[in-house]
C-alpha cells in the first residue's frame, strides 16, 4: 500500500496491515476476545441497539468488531457533533442511554459540545472514543488528544482505559453512571492497543466506592416540607427537567391536583405537566408567560421539583421572589442551596420524593388540616386571563414566525416530537405549541447550543420510528449541523425540518434592536438567497419546500406531513422584525417583565 491509498492515520501507530475480520491483526481464539470485541459484546449485553458515530484510525479495531454485530445498528453521521446531539435526542425522547462514538484527536474534540450540552441538561449519554496506543501517549502522536482531561469539566465522569481487561467493566460502569442518580454524559476513552489486545472480561463493574447516589428524601424533611405547604398562602410548584428525567409526570399531576397549588414548568420540563391543565400558569423565565413569571415572583413558598433556579428563570438574583421561602427537591445534593438559601432540602429521586409528599399531605389533610389558597389561585388565574401569549401580525404582509409554529403544533398533533434549535424560533416553539405530554419537547436549555435541532431530531426519530419528529430550526442554527440530513436520507430516517428563516441571527438581532440602538453588528444573514434551503435539501436527498405567504402555511405543512419515506425540509420565510415577548431583559428583575415592547403588566397589590 502507498500513502495515497491509505490515510496516514491508519498507520499512525505503526500497526501492520490488518486482514479483514481479525480485529487488529490478533488471531482470536474460541473463548478469548479482543478488547474491541469485549467492548462491543458489553454494549450488546447492556441492550444497546443504536450508536451514532464516525470512525478513524484509533477506533478501526472497534469498527471491525462492530461490523460483525447484528444486534447493534451503527449510524454513520457526517460530523461527530451531530453524533453526540443525536445520542442526546435519542436519550431525551426515550429515557434510555444514548451512545455516540468517535476516533481520537479531532473526532473526540468534536464531541465536546454535545458532552457539555448533555451535562447542562442532565441527559444520559455515553461517548466512546479511541485514543492512540498507550505506548504513544504523551508523545504528541498523530491525532492524539487528551480527551479524558478535556472533557473533565463537561462530563459527569470520564474514563481512560489502557488495560484491555478493564474495558468491559468500564463500559458497564459508564452506563450505570450515565443513568443513575442525576443523569449525565460519561466518556470512555480507550487506547488502540487495549482494543487490539486479548481481554479478560471477568470483571463486570468497577468498584467506584465514591459513587453513592441518593434516592429517597429524609422523612423528617418531607414532614417539614408539607408543614410549610400547609402554612403557606401563596405556594407554587416550580417543576423542572428533573421531573422529566425521573419519569415523574403522573406524580406531579397527582400532587398538583391534590393540593390545588398553581404550577409553572421550566423550558426543560415542558410537557411534564400538561400545558392545557387549568392549574398550569405557563413557563417562568426570560421569555416565560406573565402568569408564569408572576406566580413565581409573588409566591410565599416555592416548591422546586427538579429545577435549579437558573439565572434565566430568576432574573436579577437579589430581586427574585422576595417573599418566598424555598423547598428544594433535587437528586443532586449540590443543587440545594446553590443559588438561593433553602428552608427544606429534599434530596432524592423526583418521583419518589413527590410520592412521599403526596402521602404526607394525605395524612395531614385526613387529620383535618386544610390550607386555603383560594385567593392566591384566583390571583394567578387573573394574570393568566389578562396576559395571554400573543403576537402581532406583521403589517407588511410578511409571514409571522409565530403563526407558522402555532400551525405546526396544531396540524401535526399531540403525538409529534419537536426538537428546537436555539434562538427566537426556540422560544416561539416553546410558547406557541401546546405540550401536554413529557418527552415531546427536546431542546438545548442549559448550554443553548445552536445546531442541536437537526441531529437531535434524527436521534429521536431513530428511537421512535413511528412518531412524527419535527425539528424547528433557525436559519442560523440549521447551517451548523444540517449535514446530518445526508445521514437521514441515506439511513432512512425521515425527519421533518421547519426552518424559521428570518434571514438573521434573530435572537442576537433582537437584543441589538432593544439594547444596542439597532446597531445590527454581524447578525444579519442572507438566508433568503444563500443558501437556497429548498435546493440544499434536495441535494441531500430530502424533499425541499418553501413557503412565504400566510395563506400557504397550512397547505405546506400538510404537504410535508404527507411525506413519510424521505426527510422533508421547509423553508418558511418569515418576518425578520418579529420579536419574542414577553421578556425579562437579562440582569433585570422579574418585576420588570415586559408583556410586549414597553408594555408592563399590572401585577396588582400583594
Amino acid at each position: 500500500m502507498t500513502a495515497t491509498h491509505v490515510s496516514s492515520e491508519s498507520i499512525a501507530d505503526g500497526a501492520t496491515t490488518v486482514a479483514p475480520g481479525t480485529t487488529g491483526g490478533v488471531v482470536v481464539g474460541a473463548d478469548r476476545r479482543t478488547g474491541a470485541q469485549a467492548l462491543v459484546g458489553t454494549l450488546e449485553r447492556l441492550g444497546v441497539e443504536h450508536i451514532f458515530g464516525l470512525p478513524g484510525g484509533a477506533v478501526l479495531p472497534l469498527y471491525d468488531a462492530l461490523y460483525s454485530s447484528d444486534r447493534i445498528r451503527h449510524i454513520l453521521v457526517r460530523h461527530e457533533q451531530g453524533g453526540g446531539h443525536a445520542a442526546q435526542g435519542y436519550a431525551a425522547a426515550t429515557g434510555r442511554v444514548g451512545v455516540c462514538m468517535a476516533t481520537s484527536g479531532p473526532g473526540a474534540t468534536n464531541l465536546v459540545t454535545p458532552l457539555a450540552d448533555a451535562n447542562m441538561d442532565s441527559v444520559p449519554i455515553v461517548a466512546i472514543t479511541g485514543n492512540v496506543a498507550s505506548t504513544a501517549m504523551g508523545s504528541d502522536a498523530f491525532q492524539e488528544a487528551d480527551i479524558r482531561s478535556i472533557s473533565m469539566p463537561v462530563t459527569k465522569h470520564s474514563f481512560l482505559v489502557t488495560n484491555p481487561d478493564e474495558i468491559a467493566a468500564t463500559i458497564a460502569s459508564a452506563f450505570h453512571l450515565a443513568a443513575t442518580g442525576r443523569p449525565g454524559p460519561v466518556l470512555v476513552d480507550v487506547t488502540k492497543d487495549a482494543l487490539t489486545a486479548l481481554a479478560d472480561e471477568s470483571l463486570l463493574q468497577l468498584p467506584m466506592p465514591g459513587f453513592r447516589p441518593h434516592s429517597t428524601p429524609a422523612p423528617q424533611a418531607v414532614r417539614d416540607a408539607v408543614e410549610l405547604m400547609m402554612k403557606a398562602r401563596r405556594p407554587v410548584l416550580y417543576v423542572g427537567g428533573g421531573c422529566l428525567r425521573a419519569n415523574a409526570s403522573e406524580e406531579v399531576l397527582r400532587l398538583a391536583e391534590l393540593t390545588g397549588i398553581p404550577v409553572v414548568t421550566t423550558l426543560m420540563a415542558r410537557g411534564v405537566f400538561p400545558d392545557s391543565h387549568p392549574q398550569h400558569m405557563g413557563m417562568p423565565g426570560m421569555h416565560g408567560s406573565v402568569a408564569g413569571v408572576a406566580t413565581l415572583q409573588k409566591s410565599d413558598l416555592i416548591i422546586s421539583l427538579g429545577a435549579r433556579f437558573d439565572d434565566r428563570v430568576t432574573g436579577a438574583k437579589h430581586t427574585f421572589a422576595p417573599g418566598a421561602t424555598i423547598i428544594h427537591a433535587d437528586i443532586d445534593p449540590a443543587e440545594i442551596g446553590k443559588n438561593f438559601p433553602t428552608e427544606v432540602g429534599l434530596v432524592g429521586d423526583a418521583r419518589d420524593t413527590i410520592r412521599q409528599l403526596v402521602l404526607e399531605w394525605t395524612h395531614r389533610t385526613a387529620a383535618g388540616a386544610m390550607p386555603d389558597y383560594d385567593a392566591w389561585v384566583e390571583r394567578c388565574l387573573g394574570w393568566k386571563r389578562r396576559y395571554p401569549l400573543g403576537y402581532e401580525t406583521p403589517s407588511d404582509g410578511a409571514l409571522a414566525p409565530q403563526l407558522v409554529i402555532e400551525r405546526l403544533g396544531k396540524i401535526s398533533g399531540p403525538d409529534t416530537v419537536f426538537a428546537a434549535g436555539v434562538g427566537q424560533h426556540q422560544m416561539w416553539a416553546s410558547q406557541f405549541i401546546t405540550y401536554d405530554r413529557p418527552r415531546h419537547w427536546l431542546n438545548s436549555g442549559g448550554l443553548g447550543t445552536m445546531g442541536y435541532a437537526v441531529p437531535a431530531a434524527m436521534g429521536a426519530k431513530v428511537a421512535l420510528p413511528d412518531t412524527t419528529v419535527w425539528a424547528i430550526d433557525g436559519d442560523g442554527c440549521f447551517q451548523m449541523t444540517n449535514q446530518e440530513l445526508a445521514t437521514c436520507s441515506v439511513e432512512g430516517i425521515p425527519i421533518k425540518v421547519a426552518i424559521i428563516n428570518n434571514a438573521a441571527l434573530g435572537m442576537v438581532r433582537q437584543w441589538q434592536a432593544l439594547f444596542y440602538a439597532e446597531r445590527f453588528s454581524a447578525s444579519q444573514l442572507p438566508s433568503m438567497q444563500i443558501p437556497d434551503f429548498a435546493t440544499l435539501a434536495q441535494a441531500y436527498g430530502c424533499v425541499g419546500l418553501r413557503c412565504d405567504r400566510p395563506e400557504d402555511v397550512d397547505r405546506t405543512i400538510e404537504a410535508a406531513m404527507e411525506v413519510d419515506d424521505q426527510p422533508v425540509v421547509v423553508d418558511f420565510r418569515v418576518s425578520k422584525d418579529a420579536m419574542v415577548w414577553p421578556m425579562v431583559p437579562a440582569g433585570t428583575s422579574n418585576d420588570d417583565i415586559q408583556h410586549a415592547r414597553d408594555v408592563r403588566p399590572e401585577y396588582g397589590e400583594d
Partner: protein
Amino acid sequence: MTLLSPYPPPAPEVPTPPTAYRSSTRPTTRPTAADPAQRGTTMTTPSPGRQALSVLVENNPGVLARVSVLFARRNFNIDHLVVGPTEDSKVSRMTIVVNVSAEQLHKVTSQLDKLVEVIHIEELADADAIRTRLWAINDNGPRPVGAMAAAAF
C-alpha cells in the same frame, strides 16, 4: 504603523522591578512559627475565612487534575494543596486549604462529593494551623521577587 519587515519588532526591554519588589532579603511578612498572625502578603488582606479539607480519593491517574478542574470550574481558588499516599495503595489523601467562608465551603464540598473518584471528605478543624505548617513546608526554593513585575510586560 506599517510593518516593513515581516518580523515582529524587538521585544521591549525587561523593566527593572519596582523598588518594593527589589529587596534581596526575604519579605519580612512571611509567617514564622513564633508569629503565626503575620503570614505572608495574602494574609494581610481581610479574608472570609480559611478552611481545610481532607479528601480521600481513588489513586487513579488524572484524579488530581479532576479535583483541581472542579475548583477552577466553580471559581474557587486553592491556597494550598498536598497529595500523598495512604495505608491503602488504592487510595490517596488530598489536603486542601481554601480561602472561603463556611457557606461557600459547603458549596464546594457538595460539588467535590459528586466526583466519582472522591471517596470521603472531612472538614478539618484549625485550618490556620494546617496552613501554617503547609506554608513552612512549601516555603523553599526561589523567591518570587521581581517575577511578577517582569511577567507583567
